[in-house]
């Protein structure tokens, strides 16, 4: 029976260009599409961050090119505050949604989850295609939001990536709250739907499509990470979608979910003139709905990076992952606790101070599984024989940055310390390091590591290493000084710092950060060049260039349409059997039926 059922799931490789590369149902093509989308989106996001840094460091300077590109936002080359704020909003939204959620999960997860569990495709290939194209539409909509200039709005939406109501709920609350804000909400709603379809597919695939012998505890840690991420997405995106619908209704159907009564805006009282009547809504309700999603989103961004890092550290340290089971539990603990800490974003919002206390204690508890992961990464390196490929360098960089960024959560998670720190630069410093840069380092590591599998060629290691050194030092120079800005009290989302005397002392630091940012962004050109040049001209890669153990390395580079050319692999070992004493080579493939391993994760689970 199983054979017959095999024949059903065969899908012959498509031949036409459109079915093969555009509307493909092949998870590998879809994975690359997601990565391409993220590569485009991240350029948009980075350019925006450079524009913001320029405006902050050299206020009042004329940038003629800006005036040409954005005649509305920067008339005669001078950036207006509303344009700056819409850049803040778009930078955050694009980076969080279209880069940090798409590349790690939709991109690498899509490409490698099925292969690593020995499946020929995702459980629902058509749905998979649909989730990419829905996400793509979301991206197009968010881009139109910034370029939209109607009668009443000359800039994109203003609200930060959190879009707090009632600012975002009232079209008459100033520039940036017009059609651009509608498009922002619609884009996010579309993105939610795309992510939900993807999460559904990931979970079903992992539960249903594992090959023979691929028990849960034999899965690579990457798969655990993608699975947990999918669960987080599945449970958190519906809440954002629900909140987004309510917000949109407040804006266009004039309901009052988030808008209280008695508001008075630009000379008009709610219910008089052209200001519709609103009563009784709760602005804090939006924050609860948003952050119930928003906090798990942080882990959606970073968990795949953690998975890739564990995977790559083991491969290049030539050692089994230290504490595989502890790593799995830590991933789950982080995911689970992630649902109960959203209130730490709201300590000073007017929420009950008693619940703030509970949220604070739960928040600092999340540090425990995070620390466990760090200890285990160091344990994996301990006694290893480390090979410093570019992928390994970025994975090590991930560990360093994860610690650097994560540990200041101990400050922000405390109720009383949040009083001075909330909404200062300490917060962007913290989350950029941990969910932004660390995640991206995980993705750089993944790119350099899996590129030979995806394209059958290596990326240039020399260029890659140069890219690593400058980026690694660069991001420290950008984000560590931001912490001290926060300690001085510099608030976020200020279009200029010139208004306050207590911020004047920080000017040299602001300029230093901006220069570091510009250099770091420019260095990414190396990465883009290396990436696209290597697709065509890179050195040819064999099937298993890194002498790795997991299933993706048992098939050709790139893998055939059905991943394993007509047969499915059978798994005999845990995922990281490196340097097994007595084995002929220093690694044992998961499919190796001959090799004897006396202990390991795939067996009794107890280390020695």
């Amino acid at each position, binding site marked *: 029976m199983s054979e017959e059922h095999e024949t059903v799931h065969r899908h012959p490789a498509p031949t036409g260009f459109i079915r093969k590369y555009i509307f493909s149902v092949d998870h590998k093509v879809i994975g690359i599409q997601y990565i391409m989308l993220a590569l485009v989106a991240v350029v948009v996001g980075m350019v925006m961050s450079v524009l913001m840094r320029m405006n902050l460091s050299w206020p009042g300077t004329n940038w003629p090119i800006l005036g040409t590109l954005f005649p509305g936002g920067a008339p005669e080359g001078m950036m207006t505050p509303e344009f700056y*704020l819409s850049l803040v909003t778009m930078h955050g939204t694009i980076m969080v949604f279209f880069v940090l959620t798409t590349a790690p999960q939709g991109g690498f997860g899509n490409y490698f989850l099925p292969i690593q569990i020995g499946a020929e495709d995702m459980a629902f290939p058509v749905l998979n295609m649909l989730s990419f194209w829905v996400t793509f539409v979301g991206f197009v909509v968010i881009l139109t939001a910034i370029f939209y200039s109607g009668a009443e709005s000359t800039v994109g939406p203003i609200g930060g990536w959190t879009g707090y109501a009632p*600012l975002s709920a009232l079209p008459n*609350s100033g*520039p940036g709250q017009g059609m651009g804000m509608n498009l922002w909400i619609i884009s996010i709603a579309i993105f939610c739907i795309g992510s939900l379809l993807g999460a559904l597919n990931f979970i079903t695939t992992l539960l249903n499509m594992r090959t023979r012998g691929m028990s849960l505890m034999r899965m690579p840690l990457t798969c655990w990470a993608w699975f947990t991420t999918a669960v987080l997405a599945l449970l958190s995106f519906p809440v954002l979608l629900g909140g987004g619908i309510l917000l949109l209704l407040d804006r266009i159907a004039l309901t009052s979910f988030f808008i*209280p009564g008695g*508001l*008075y*805006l630009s*000379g008009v009282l709610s219910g008089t003139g052209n200001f519709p009547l609103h009563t009784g809504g709760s*602005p*804090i309700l939006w924050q609860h709905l948003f952050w119930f999603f928003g906090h798990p989103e942080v882990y959606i961004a970073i968990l795949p990076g953690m998975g890739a890092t564990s995977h790559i550290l083991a491969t290049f340290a030539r050692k*089994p*992952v*230290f504490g595989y089971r*502890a790593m799995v539990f830590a991933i789950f603990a982080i995911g689970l606790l992630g649902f109960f800490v959203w209130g730490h974003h709201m300590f*000073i*919002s*007017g929420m009950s*101070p008693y619940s703030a206390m509970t949220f*604070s*204690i739960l928040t*600092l508890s999340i*540090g*425990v599984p995070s*620390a*466990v992961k760090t200890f285990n990464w160091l*344990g994996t*390196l*301990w006694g290893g*024989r*480390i*090979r*410093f490929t570019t992928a390994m*360098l970025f994975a090590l960089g991930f*560990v*360093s940055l994860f*610690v*650097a960024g994560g*540990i200041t959560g*101990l*400050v922000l998670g405390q*109720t*009383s*310390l*949040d*009083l001075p720190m*909330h*909404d200062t630069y300490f917060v962007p410093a913290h989350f950029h390091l941990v969910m932004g840069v660390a995640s991206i380092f995980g993705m750089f590591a993944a790119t350099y590591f899996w590129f030979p599998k995806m394209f059958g060629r290596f990326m240039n290691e020399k260029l890659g290493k140069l890219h690593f050194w400058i980026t690694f030092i660069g991001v420290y120079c950008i984000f560590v*000084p931001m912490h*001290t800005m926060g300690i*001085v*009290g510099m*608030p*976020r*989302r200020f279009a200029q710092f010139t*208004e306050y005397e*207590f911020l004047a002392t920080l000017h040299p*630091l602001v300029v230093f950060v901006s220069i570091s940012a510009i250099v770091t962004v420019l260095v990414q050109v190396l990465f883009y060049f290396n990436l696209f040049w290597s697709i065509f001209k890179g050195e040819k890669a064999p099937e298993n260039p890194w002498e790795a153990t997991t299933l993706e390395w048992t098939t050709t580079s790139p893998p055939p349409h059905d991943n394993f050319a007509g047969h499915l692999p059978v798994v005999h070992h845990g995922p990281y059997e490196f340097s097994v004493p007595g084995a002929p080579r*220093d690694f044992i493939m998961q499919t190796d039926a001959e090799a004897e391993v006396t202990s390991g994760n795939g067996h009794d689970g107890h*280390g020695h």
Partner: protein
Amino acid sequence: MGRALAVVIWALTLGSVSLFFVKKWWFPTAISSHAPALDRQFLITIIVVGLAFTAAQVGLGYMVWKYRDTGTPGRAKYTHGSSRLEVLWTVITAVIFIGLAVMGQSVWASLHFNQAPPGSFPVEVVAQQFQWNFHYAGRDGVPGRTDPTLIDDSTLNFIGLDEADPNAKDDAVHSVLAIPAGRPVELILRSKDVIHNFFVPQLRFKQDLVPGMAIRVHFTANTPGKYELACAELCGQLHFKMRSFMLVLPEDEHRELTALSQEDFQTRMTELLAKYQLPANN
């Protein structure tokens, strides 16, 4: 390569830690009663954070230095971990982290778990895009009635004060917050339009002003002087310009100010704003 990476990691660690250690850029001098305890908690936390950060980075550097592949024959150490170590470091970090969280509650509790002490000086705060309005109750200590329908920015009645209410006769409204030194202050925070945030760095205090809510907070400022007051929650186009001042006045000077009639109050505030200087940057 391993040695180079170790050196870079250690150098970055040293650089990062020294930025916090030299304190060239640091908190402005605190002026509130709860600030010393808060600053102490921050110091304890930042020391724990700094130690953990340094330990992890030094450890990482050590690993990549020591265990780089030098090409000598032999294999990596084959181990799947140690349950005893896992338990050990889970327990240690749990104790430290949760301990910090619990310690961090005391300042919070002192500010938020009880009401303003009797005898506090009350000020009604009404924020709007992009301006602060502070409503002083005047000599009688009872603030006049306010009503959103009476708000009229064009006649400068920003808070909708009902002039017909006898309690409103001696009230004053000003864009600057003037409070007494050494006496508890209770702010009743409201917003007319969107969410704003009351932030004075020297106070070590921050609170959102949410439309539709009246949030009561209290604190005590001890050092007389003029301090910058910022809005710290994105409130629209000119958010970065929503600046005002907080004047902390010696008790008698403050008592004298609040006893003045509306016109004299405005004049006196202008004088006081000129009299006090912003603290020098430290």
